């Protein structure tokens, strides 16, 4: 057993234990770790935005490359600060509307491409049991998402088959994700026992 002498390993280990203490109940150690995590992440992200956005996307193109088109997004960004002035806060709706509208428009072609890929992927190129199950699953799931028809009679039965397929899919996804989470937990325990306490090799 050789306990770590690295101060950073100690800090990481104690913060890990502080976060895990939440499993017992909300307590002062969790509160300290929570505040550190939130505060450090905000500070870190602020510096990332400063370098990757303000410097790289505004200052350098404007001052070094003399690309004055950057002024348009710069003004839109600055309009967000109107929220600081009572009575002028509504101006911030302009950049928000621009961002939401542009992103929604841009998502249209990619959404259709995804739709086509899914339809194409469902087409059975080989007549097999697996392919038929996929096809039945897709069609019944689509029926479950019919909103303008009452789910009664034939439609009701088909949509029940659809929700059964959905739940089977959820069960499989749940199991797979839990396995991934357990491997993350094992990684943390290994850190505590090996890197910090030196109990295991």
């Amino acid at each position, binding site marked *: 057993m050789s306990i770590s002498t690295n101060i950073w390993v100690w800090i990481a280990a104690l913060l890990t234990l502080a*976060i895990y203490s*939440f499993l017992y109940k*909300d307590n002062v150690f*969790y*509160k300290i*770790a*929570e505040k550190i*995590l*939130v505060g*450090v*992440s*905000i500070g*870190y*992200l602020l510096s990332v935005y400063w370098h990757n956005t303000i410097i790289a996307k505004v200052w350098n193109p404007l001052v070094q490359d003399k690309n004055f088109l950057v002024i348009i997004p710069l003004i839109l960004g600055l309009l*967000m600060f109107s*929220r600081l002035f009572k009575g002028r806060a509504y101006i*911030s*709706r302009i950049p*928000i509307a621009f*961002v*939401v509208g*542009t*992103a*929604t428009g841009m*998502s*249209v*072609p990619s959404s*259709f*491409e995804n*739709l*086509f890929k899914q*339809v*194409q992927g*469902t*087409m*059975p*190129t*080989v*007549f097999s049991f697996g*392919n038929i199950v996929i*096809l039945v699953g*897709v*069609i019944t799931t*689509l*029926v479950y*998402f*019919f*909103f*303008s*028809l*009452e*789910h009664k009679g034939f439609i009701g039965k088909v949509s029940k088959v659809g929700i059964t397929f*959905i739940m089977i*899919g*959820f*069960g499989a*996804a*749940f199991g797979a*994700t839990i396995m991934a*989470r357990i491997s993350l937990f094992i990684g943390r325990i290994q850190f505590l026992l090996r890197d910090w306490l030196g109990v295991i090799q």
Partner: protein
Amino acid sequence: MKKLCYLLLIMLLVGAYPALHAQTGTMPLDPDTAYSDTIPTEIVLRAEDTPNDAGSAITVTWECNDNLPSGLITIVRINGEEESIVAEDLMLTKEQVRDTDVADDKEYSYYGIITSPDNKYYRTKDSNPAKSEAQWFNTDRTDSFVAVLFITLVFVWFIQQAKKGKSFYIRKINGLDAIEEAVGRSTEMGKPIMYILGIGYVTDIPTIAGLTILSRVAKKAAEYDTSVLVPCYDPVVMTTAQEVVKESFTEAGRPDAYQKEDTMYITQDQFGYAAGVDGMMMREKPGAVFLQGLFFAESLILAETGHSIGAIQIAGTTETAQLPFFVAACDYTLIGEEMMAASVYMDKNPLMLGSIVAEDMVKVLIIVILFIGLLLGILGPGLGIDIFNNWFEWLIRII
């Protein structure tokens, strides 16, 4: 003595320079001195503007069809007197590289330096000159364009039907019916409501759907005089959520009850956000928790904490990997498109109901295409009948 040391140091640096230079692996760019005169294979480089892009890209292609299949090629851009490497040591079999570091409407040509398996260099002839330019229309997306036009027509037709007075039906969505119950329960307990929009941005469709549901929840909360806590991951989402809550309180006739500070920014770090929201949940103990938006790995952490404090939970997301956790830990879950239908369901606006019917018609169309694909798949690739095989391939191609 000191001078001698300096002299030795300079000699050492001068002597070490070629070795250091060789270590970097930089290839000499002068064809007259470094390359073999004979090219064992006639590789011709062709340069052309990359089609269907926003400009600033030229595609360089070549054919590797003879005795250098395992050779490497370095593509060099010629810009007047200036030469620079575009891509280094590519497999000759790659046969294509895209130069994305060019200016539009400026001529460039290229040559390749081929490294043979026995480590000899050969220089190809210069390619044809080419200019890059942006295209207005991406022909690769013609199918999407046609689909958008068709689906728009379907939507317009059904909305017109609604305008003419035709009434449409929308089925029951339990999760949305439970909103009033959840808000009422919180009010009775004298506790606030917590509305979590997840870690999406305002450009994500689930976040926009979450904001729509927030307007309904906030209006109900204002009517019942209950506060709504909205911890946010993104500053722009926070700003939008503040506007939504404020408008809902005003619509409910309670603008005085609106508290701007109740819609707050936490952090833009995924687990920092989860830790912050969890802590807030434990301290504020909301009677109802809404998880509506885009969620990833933090979904179960949030839903489990909400469950542990005994809050009624209504979740909704389009992330299929996170839905199982919501189904397991929450009282009601809006699955994928149910979330998108929320705005129509809550308002029951006849025009918007028309759009829901149009959406269902598109699903019917997809089912029809799948059935046609099944039939053609059985008769074509399955039974090997040529004509159906051709039709099946044609169907796959147009999709």
